[in-house]
């Protein structure tokens, strides 16, 4: 085992640190002018899309350099590298891997520059965890696909200019809805059904201003609206906007989702959160005693910290595998499960430390910190449900790693 950086890695880390020393100003992170300038500067360094090939405008950073960059940025609480969140996380990588030259030229620079937001149209009312059962239909008419159907839970849909959309292009008789072909043995038919479920899916890149698209925001339990229902009524999408081949949509999108896997930056966010919870425990006095002296609270804080440290170290083991050129598989579900448990757990811990005051959302005492812990304790579904639920992660581990039968 060896946790040292090589000389060139150290040089890169020092370059990042020097950049942060020079450009990061305490308390300035919120100002739009500072953010605009920050974005321009990190873009000039090619640190936006740092893992992408240089030919498309990315930074061509090695795996270790990517880790160092994320790590240093997160440690210093720097603003994000680029503003087009989903574009950078999975739309861009999909386009780079499967897109035509024209698509790359059209979309990649805008993602890097953060010209506009993308949204992700995968989930449907009847297709959530079982995403491959999606029904939103695209029928080929000349040079267009005509799309009819509905998406739901589409984050940012009301502000996004583009959408990465999954549709079903298979004609009737080939789709999953047609069921298993008669005559075949039951298991055989189920297998063929499952295969065709994936093979009938196509990925389209959609302009949200195309006629026939209606976006209806959905208020979540915090009271605000970040996601929406999106309705498609005979929406004509040019065939040139298809990403990958017809029927290749599953592969196109899933591989990109899988590529976004470094959990190390996430750990810094969780460390920051647990540090705040510890401070809260020290400051909160109930029943004449600091909550940081309560044995139950102490144990749960220590437990959360051990779990966060385990995530960090798991991440380093995965990284070691990647550096050896071994592909990462389902083991990344380990940290997803930890993250889900911690997002819920830290919110609960904060509310339990605060007691009655933890339920208050106002800005005046006895509410604490303007009710931010109450808001935090309502925020977990984003992470816990959004990226594939814990049950689904457990299925993945049980089936792909332990080799247990599918259910």
């Amino acid at each position, binding site marked *: 085992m060896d946790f040292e950086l090589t000389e060139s890695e150290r040089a890169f880390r020092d370059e990042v640190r020097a950049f942060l020393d020079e450009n990061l100003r305490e308390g300035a992170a919120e100002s739009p002018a500072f953010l605009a300038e920050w974005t321009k500067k990190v873009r000039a360094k090619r640190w936006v899309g740092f893992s992408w090939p240089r030919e498309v405008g990315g930074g061509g950073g090695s795996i270790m350099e990517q880790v160092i960059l994320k790590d240093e940025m997160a440690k210093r609480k720097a603003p994000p590298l680029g503003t087009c969140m989903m574009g950078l996380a999975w739309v861009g990588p999909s386009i780079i891997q499967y897109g035509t030259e024209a698509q790359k030229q059209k979309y990649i620079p805008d993602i890097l520059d953060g010209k506009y937001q993308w949204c992700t149209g995968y989930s449907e009312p009847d297709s959530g965890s079982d995403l491959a059962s999606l029904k939103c239909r695209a029928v080929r008419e000349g040079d267009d696909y005509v799309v009819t159907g509905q998406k739901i839970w589409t984050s940012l849909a009301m502000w996004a200019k583009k959408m990465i959309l999954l549709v079903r292009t298979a004609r009737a008789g080939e789709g999953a809805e047609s069921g298993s072909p008669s005559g075949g043995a039951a298991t055989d038919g189920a297998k063929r059904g499952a295969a065709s479920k994936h093979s009938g899916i196509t990925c389209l890149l959609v302009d949200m201003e195309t006629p026939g698209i209606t976006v209806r925001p959905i208020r979540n339990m915090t009271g605000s609206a970040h996601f929406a229902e999106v309705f498609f009524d005979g929406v004509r999408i040019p065939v040139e906007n298809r990403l990958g081949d017809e029927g290749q949509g599953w592969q196109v999108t899933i591989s990109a989702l899988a590529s976004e896997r470094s959990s190390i930056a996430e750990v810094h966010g969780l460390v920051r959160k647990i540090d705040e919870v510890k401070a809260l425990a020290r400051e909160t006095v109930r029943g004449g005693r600091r909550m940081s002296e309560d044995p139950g609270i102490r144990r749960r804080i220590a437990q959360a910290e051990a779990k966060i440290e385990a995530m960090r170290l798991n991440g380093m083991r995965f990284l*070691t595998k990647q*550096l050896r050129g071994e592909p990462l598989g389902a083991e990344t579900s380990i940290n997803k499960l930890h993250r889900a448990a911690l997002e819920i757990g830290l919110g609960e811990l904060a509310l339990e430390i605060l007691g009655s005051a933890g339920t208050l959302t106002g800005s005046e005492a006895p509410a604490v910190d303007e009710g931010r812990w109450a808001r935090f304790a309502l925020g977990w579904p984003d992470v816990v449900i959004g990226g594939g639920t814990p049950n689904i992660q457990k299925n993945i581990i049980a089936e792909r790693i332990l080799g247990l039968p599918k259910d």
Partner: protein
Amino acid sequence: MNFGFTDDQRFLGEEVHKFLESSYPLRTVREVVDSPTFGGSDATLWNRIVSLGWPGLCLSEAHGGAGLDLETLIVVLEETGRTLLPSPLISTILAARAIERFGTSSQRQSWLPGLADGSRIGTFAMLEAGDSLSPAGVGTTGRVEGNAIVLSGEKRFVPDAVGAGLFVIPVRMVDERAGRSASAGNGDRGDSSLDEIALVFVDREAPGVSVSPLAGMDLTKPMGTVTLSDVRIPLDHLLGETRLGWSAVEWILDLGAALVTAEAVGSVEAALELTTRFAKDRIQFGHPIGHFQGVKHPLAEIYVDLESFRSLAYYAIWAIDHDAPDAKLAVSRAKAYASDAFAQAGILGVQLHGGVGYTWEYDIQLYLKRSKWFRPIFGDADYHYERAARLGGL
């Protein structure tokens, strides 16, 4: 950056795996511990371990060891943990590393070669009647009388006590002139009482030493009581130049905790494999039971915990070996997490086997028992999470 093993280490792990799989599968392990002559170590087994050089694997070459680092030991311990090998390997390594770290050069010369070549089995005897891993838990006294130290007290739950030839023991040095130990009954000790603690070597053969076995649920991890009745040891059996104080004891306990946690990685891995295999084979309601989420999800949870405490354990071993500033915290996190996780894996393992899981014949119960042994040794989850909270600034 490499948070993994080298090719050489992986190769060693595979060799150890092959050896134990062929020579000491659980079937053989059962025979060893069921034999009426098994009192704490099996001579045949120990001789084979010694011939493979494991006791001296990570002792310096100058003292008869192979000079490898502690992380290399992990690949061995994972395998001994898989097959629940009933050997005093960890105890001996712990005693040896304590002497290597804290002993004078003449102490290292005189004691280490015998531990490295396995001619002597060593162990660390900490706990007493109070069952407390704290300075207050050390009640055994050492009194200087001329050229000797006179020891008296009783050490309990001593791992591998019956087979051991050398005990490394924390004692409280009593000042004759003050006429009493500053300790007696006073729970509120200042720093000076930490300095009263010293480490001594005690030879099994010294007059006044008696060892009796304790019957435990995990037959593969025998323990015993060591009674010291006015045992006279020469002054140079005081480990180090002077009284080492509590911090040395803490370091030894940490190393012990890290080593047993590395071994627990192998045990939980094997328990998970055993239960997973069973879940694939056992059919109920027309399906392998592993098809049901009530079975597959707990197995996935064990896997998540296993991989997580594996990471924590590897890092803890590395941190101790490199005197990293966060070594104590790393050990506490690893042992705390593992204590809970192993206990849970043991219970779920038996439960998911159904009725056969409760039988003497099925092996899963052996892992459940190992988890019970593992939980308190060198500190349970309560102890280590509380320590982690303190070290983390709470």
